[in-house]
């Protein structure tokens, strides 16, 4: 019975994490209000390196697998491995920096809040404060 309960709790946790709404956030000083999946793809595949006002984009990635998968599915990237290979090629060829990967939603929130050109994604429920704004939501 105990095992059954543990399994149920684990399954519930997986379902809850899998269904978590995701928010794409930028620093509040960024004039952008909304973003399309296509533009997000260009930013995360490093085809677009600057915001429309000329500021460099600091791309942040979330280490948590379930959120990561949902985000890359939303922007239409083929798979996370291909995205990471593209980042590595970009970095080792001297074209620019590969995105920084952060370990938690809290870290994502504080990095975006403290970096003017930053963009990142995290659980919508974890978005707090006035230093960041949500520019896209993923159901």
């Amino acid at each position, binding site marked *: 019975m105990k095992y059954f309960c543990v399994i149920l709790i684990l399954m519930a946790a997986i379902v809850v994490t899998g269904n978590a709404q995701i928010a794409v956030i930028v620093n509040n000083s960024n004039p952008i209000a909304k973003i399309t999946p296509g533009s997000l793809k260009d930013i995360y595949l490093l085809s677009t390196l600057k915001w429309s006002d000329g500021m460099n984009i600091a791309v942040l990635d979330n280490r948590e697998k379930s959120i990561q998968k949902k985000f890359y599915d939303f922007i239409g990237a083929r798979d996370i491995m291909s995205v990471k290979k593209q980042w590595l*090629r970009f*970095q*080792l060829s001297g*074209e620019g*920096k590969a995105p920084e990967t952060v370990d938690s939603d809290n870290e994502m929130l504080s990095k975006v809040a403290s970096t003017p050109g930053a963009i990142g994604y995290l659980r919508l429920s974890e978005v707090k404060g006035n230093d960041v704004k949500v520019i896209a939501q993923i159901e």
Partner: protein
Amino acid sequence: MKKIITALTAVVIFLVTTGYAQEAQPLEVFGYFQAKFAYSPKNSFERAQNSFNIQQMNILLRKELGHDFSAFVNVELTNSFSSERNWGALNLEEAWVKYQIIPELSIKGGLLIPTFNNLNAIKSKTPLLPYIVRPVVYESSMSVLIGTDYVPERAYIQLYGTKTLGDVDLNYAAYTGNSETSYITTGVAGSTVTGNDTTTFKMIGGRVGISTRGIKAGISGTYDRKNVQVPVIPAPYFVSPGNVPRVRIGGDLSFKVDAFSFEGEFILVRHTLNDFSKAALAGIVQMTTDPRTGKSPFHYGLDKKFGYVNLMYDINDQWYVYAGYDYLSDEFNTIFNDGLMKYSVGGGFRPIDQVVLKAQYIDVKGKNEDFIKLNYESYNVAVSILF
């Protein structure tokens, strides 16, 4: 005149002050190395042997300079480099400054690895490559045997970029650089200023490609001259074709279907010999043909061919396996004129993003067995580290 000077001074002051006003970007220092253990059973050239080796280590420096300028330096140390023990080599692989003219077009100036097919620009970036021993024309440990004629090794100016047209990315690059290495002055030749091109003709080249929905394809080409001033056929014949015009044509294709990734390339190297050299070579081949075998140790031309295919399967995010095949032929090389083949199988494991453990078996065979039976096998394991 006074107005112009005032305006220019204002522009200079503006550029300098805005440059300093920008937040200073830190110097990025990073790099990678690949440590390898290889076992080779007895082969055509050597006894059985095994060895540990730091195959290569690259130290990379990058800095955003502001105003769309950035600089990049890549220093490579190969084969457990030690100047004291005379091991390996230390090479300045890249040192360039880049300026983004518009988002779709950038220019690089300085020493750079030119874009040619898919693999040339990343041939030494070991954390990106699934294999340990690269396709033969890209493998530095085989360059003594195979030569370096197949791909352009370095250029000095490159214009390049990507234009997005709907779902398709159009990639383009055009570059120029010095003639091939044998034209460059060295200390061995007693030159006081080394590393200088002794010719007035330069290499030019480029690539045009597309990438869409996981498919990448492109064609590449270069034009330069091959240094054949020394006799290509020894005494008593002496044929010296001179500075022979050379064209390299390449094609590359890569795509991913589910967990399978395919990559392949071909390269053709064509030389235009003058009529005298052609006739002389044909005459010598005729004179030296063995009537019993119908074969001569010499051949008519200098042309070369190369191709490779590699099929990889990602078992999951961490494990992968692959199999590859390379083919090469060189009309003028006695060992490779009928072809050289390399079969390769291997796999890898990525415990974390910065570490790749690799294993590979290779079998290299020469088709021409009249002069030497080339057969080389090796079992390799390696770890590639990004830092």
